[in-house]
């Protein structure tokens, strides 16, 4: 069992299958479904990843979908080193100090 009632989880579902999508879309977008992710507290007594479940969102709305993550968390960061940026500060300080004589 991956989660029990009340566990904070993330669910996924398909809003529109590719054949149900708007005709006014670029080809690549029309080929894929419209997908949705929502987080909430699990309402089922217990569930495993991949099960169809129901959740209560943080503000109290109910939503159904496939359980994809238990205790979901963010992993975005300050990225990797981008060496291409390193010249900017030195270049600017060089230009300004030459002019301003400070």
């Amino acid at each position, binding site marked *: 069992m991956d989660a029990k009632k009340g566990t904070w989880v993330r669910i996924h579902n398909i809003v529109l299958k590719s054949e149900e999508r708007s005709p006014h879309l670029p080809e690549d977008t029309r080929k894929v479904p*419209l997908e949705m992710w929502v987080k909430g507290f699990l309402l089922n007594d217990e569930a495993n990843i991949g099960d169809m479940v129901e959740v209560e969102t*943080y503000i109290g709305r109910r939503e159904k979908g496939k359980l994809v993550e238990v205790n979901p968390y963010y992993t*975005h960061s300050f990225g990797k080193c981008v060496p291409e940026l390193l010249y900017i*500060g030195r270049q600017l300080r060089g230009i300004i100090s030459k002019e301003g004589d400070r």
Partner: protein
Amino acid sequence: MSKDMSFEAVMGRRSEIMKKAIGIDYDAFESDGIVFDYEKMMRETGYSLQEIERIQKETGVGNTPLLELKNLTELARKYAPEGKGARIFIKDEAANPSGSFKDRRAATACYHAQRLGYKGVVAATSGNYGAAVASQAAMRGLKCIIVQECYDSRGVGQPEIIEKARKCEALGAEVVQLTVGPELFYTFLKILEETGYFNASLYTPFGIAGVETLGYELSMQFREREGKDPDAVVITNAGGGNLTGTARGLIKAGASHTQIVGASVDLSGLHMASDTQFNKKSFTTGHTGFGVPFATWPDRSDVPRSAARPLRYMDRYLLINQGSVFYMTEALAQVQGIERGPAGNTSLAVAFSLAQELDEDKIVVAQETEYTGAGKHIQPQLSFAKENGIKVEIGDPEDEVPGKNIVLPKDPSYIKAKDTDINKMRKSYIKNCIKHSNAKKVTDKDIKFLAEETKTNEQFVKEELKELNIIY
């Protein structure tokens, strides 16, 4: 019996759902033909400037610092012709509670929702507006749902948008995340119908009126500090609300000689609804993918009549490449000691270039900044670009091709904003009005309206109508 929730059925109930969720009867401002009464709409459904100042003060919005960027001015003068190089200022909108000017729009929307007795607010946005609505809703005890276009079909999301989702959740909101596509509107309508919450649209009269205080403050702060209004205000343009509201505020202050300059990141060639191109852009807003279509047809938004109508106010529309905005973001941090988010620096990059055209005693102001943090920062955004096959190069921004590479200017002399043909956009707007109204013949009232909408004159409108074979 349960309602039909199919795509067609929900979209068919669109105007009924919207009316309940905004509480404005837009029909009251319509008449036959192309014309609608914009000023009446703003007057009767918005709030006065004084009321908005009071509303925003209640939740700590506005009165943000005005900062002179002396080192960047000095730098601009190095590349400007003799006697040129206007003083560059910035309005530090990141000082608002949720970290951007969007708090001004959210403040009035949430106040209005509370006053009308709604229990919660919903907004469709992948931008800073989500955090702004979540923040204002938290202060006013309203529930909040933010609907985001967030991922491509691989489930990969822009770090900038992921960060905004995190921030909304941190402020107690529910975030509904979707893959790419304009059918986001279907999910948005379903949620509005299900919850009965208020549509905190970016494009309502109260949302736009909320930005008027920004323009008004600019004028007052400059008069107090420099004894005059700014000569040019540079405003990042996407949906047109920032520009419209700021310009209206300046006009209300009596700053009639201030030039209104729109600024966008040039993303021409990228399709905004494309799944595969979604993560090939390194700016999620403030770019031409929104700026141009919303200026030339504002009523494409999530309300029947958008209160954001940038062509009514815009004097010039300048474009800048992605690499120059990233460079200026680094410059602001490195020589001015102010670290802010890249998207908010679009107007600053343009102001840096524009300052070199203006005399030394003139004043140019970039009217916003935004918060920065994990995801919303040059480093993760450029790392992400590289992971998605975008080359990051140092060279001449002229060589940048959106979706292929990002070119950081070799040195500041390469930062050059480019004018768009604003008359072409004005003509395109007139053409869209004719197309959407199916008009074969237009009245004098229509012509007057079109002249106001495009900041031109009747002669200009008539010439374009002649081109379109429309009788007047």
